[in-house]
């Protein structure tokens, strides 16, 4: 595929015109995965056989399906999203061998749009983590520097797009799991508004925070995938009936007249490279006609403690379903001396990794008698104050700008024994989940060490279109996505 720019748009066009076939595209990507992924470990499963079948089907129906937005486009699915008849493990030992009997709504919509599902991607176990180090399949490596983490929890999805192993990945974002790895791997990541995309078929982590969204090379591609998966779903009662704007017809990006809020003192204590990139990006948007407005988010400093009480509390409840009865791992027990309780307890101890256990413990504690008011209720109250801060800000601005992360990708092993240090890195991403607001991370240059840096915009509820327009405007001026990580080991 020499000379190919690897985007959805060009791939689809060349399949449509007959310049190439979906089958050839599929083979090219599978060959590339075969040669590169041994080292990266972005995939938990490569679905060669079924991908070839889907690609053939696309080629057979090419003319009849010409309006399908992802015709012949290979897409990967994070391994917390169910795809029928293929493994879905949540990167956990407790779901080893599980094959979903149904497609998640988002997967069905991708298939209906002509996409070819080529694999399931690696992540932190049950999407709990910021580094993909907490996976039963081992860490995914950052394509830009193999000694570093790709971010998390959707590290495999980000690495796959960055290394051109797929033009698009679907992932989930509960506290930054799409945006932070997108920033660390130099790709675009969109977390839609809560309720915008169906979670039917997503392994639930924290149900008031979880959302599914795309990771792609360009903003336009993110808009295409987003438009494909968005909309109400009767299988997910939390989806909204708000109409979905046709962002696929986005047109060129536009920042003219946009009012962008910049939280006061946002750059305190963050990495110099990130600070430089953030200011340069704001500079580009200003040149394009945006106005910067100072805003106050007085409760932002509390977002991390709120998140790390609310998310584990919900997780401790959601993960109660993994008990060895209906699916997944079951511990061996003595049929004479052991009972059902022992089977539950031992199954969960053997099946869950350390980060998942830590969060279940933390969440159980925060919900337990005597501590519920001091931890969970207090966190929920502060959460509503954080939401009020944003409501107030959006009276004056169309979008809020922040770096995606305080620094670039850290080294494998750097924070793995210090969970609190790992959690603190999520300072800029968790607010979008706590408030339900949409947010996008776009590539915004590189550190002095050549590591990608992300720029984040948050928007009003259901106003993904403004985020995409602004991000596209910046991308036209600064097309960082065209810089590729090398295939050689670094």
């Amino acid at each position: 595929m020499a000379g190919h720019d690897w985007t959805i748009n060009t791939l689809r066009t060349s399949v449509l015109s007959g310049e190439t076939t979906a089958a050839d595209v599929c083979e090219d990507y599978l060959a590339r995965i075969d040669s590169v992924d041994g080292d990266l470990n972005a995939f938990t499963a490569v679905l060669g056989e079924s991908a070839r079948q889907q690609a053939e089907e696309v080629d057979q129906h090419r003319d009849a399906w010409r309006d399908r937005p992802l015709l012949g486009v290979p897409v990967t699915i994070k391994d917390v999203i169910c795809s029928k008849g293929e493994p879905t493990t949540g990167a956990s030992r407790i779901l080893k061998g599980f094959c979903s009997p149904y497609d998640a709504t988002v997967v069905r919509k991708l298939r209906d749009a002509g996409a070819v599902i080529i694999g399931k991607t690696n992540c932190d176990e049950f999407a709990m983590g910021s580094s993909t180090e907490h996976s039963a399949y081992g860490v995914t490596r950052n394509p830009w520097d193999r000694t570093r983490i790709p971010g998390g929890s959707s590290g495999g999805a980000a690495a796959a797009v960055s290394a051109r192993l797929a033009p698009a990945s679907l992932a989930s974002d509960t506290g930054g799991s799409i945006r932070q790895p997108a920033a660390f791997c130099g790709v675009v990541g969109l977390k839609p508004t809560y309720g915008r995309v169906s979670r039917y078929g997503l392994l639930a982590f924290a149900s008031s925070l979880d959302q599914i969204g795309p990771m792609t090379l360009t903003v336009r591609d993110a808009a295409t995938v987003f438009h494909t998966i968005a909309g109400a779903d009767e299988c997910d009662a939390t989806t909204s009936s708000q109409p979905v704007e046709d962002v696929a017809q986005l047109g060129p990006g536009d920042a003219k007249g946009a009012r962008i809020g910049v939280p006061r003192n946002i750059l305190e204590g963050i990495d110099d490279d990130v600070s430089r990139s953030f200011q340069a990006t704001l500079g580009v948007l200003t040149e394009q006609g945006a106005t910067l407005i100072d805003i106050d988010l007085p409760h932002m400093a509390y977002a991390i403690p709120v998140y790390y009480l609310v998310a584990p509390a919900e997780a401790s409840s959601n993960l109660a379903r993994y008990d060895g009865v209906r699916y997944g791992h079951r511990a061996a027990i003595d049929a004479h001396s052991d009972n059902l309780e022992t089977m539950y307890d031992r199954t969960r101890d053997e099946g869950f990794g350390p980060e998942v256990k830590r969060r279940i413990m933390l969440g159980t504690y925060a919900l337990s008698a005597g501590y519920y008011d001091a931890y969970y209720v207090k966190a929920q109250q502060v959460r509503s104050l954080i939401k009020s801060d944003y409501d107030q800000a959006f009276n004056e601005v169309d979008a809020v700008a922040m770096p995606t992360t305080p620094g670039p990708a850290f080294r494998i092993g750097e924070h793995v024994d210090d969970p609190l240090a790992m959690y603190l890195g999520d300072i800029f991403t968790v607010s979008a989940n706590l408030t339900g607001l949409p947010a996008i991370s776009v590539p915004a240059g590189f550190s002095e060490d050549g590591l990608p840096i992300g720029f984040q915009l948050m928007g009003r509820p259901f106003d993904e279109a403004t985020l995409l327009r602004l991000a596209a405007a910046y991308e036209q001026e600064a097309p960082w996505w065209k810089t590729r990580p090398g295939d050689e080991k670094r």
Partner: protein
Amino acid sequence: MPSPLTLEDVERIAALAHLELTADEKQLFARQLAQILGYAERLQEVETTNVSADWRPVSETAALRPDERRESLSNEAALDNAPAPGPGGLFRVPRVIG
């Protein structure tokens, strides 16, 4: 609020969470949970009198669908992933009483 966590605290939570932890895990979690909960103490600085704890990101009431019979998973498909499918289309579990 308590800190640090005792091993008894950790054992009590592990029992509630249905986790059979090893001795090493109990030590580790006692230390790490105390550290994380210690950090979360800063929430107590925030004035929250009369602030609702019920805010949720969903603004619409859930839509109802007609109460009609529909296709669902077959018994066979539902048992496909069972670690110990029993006879007669059931999940087999260890004894519950005694």
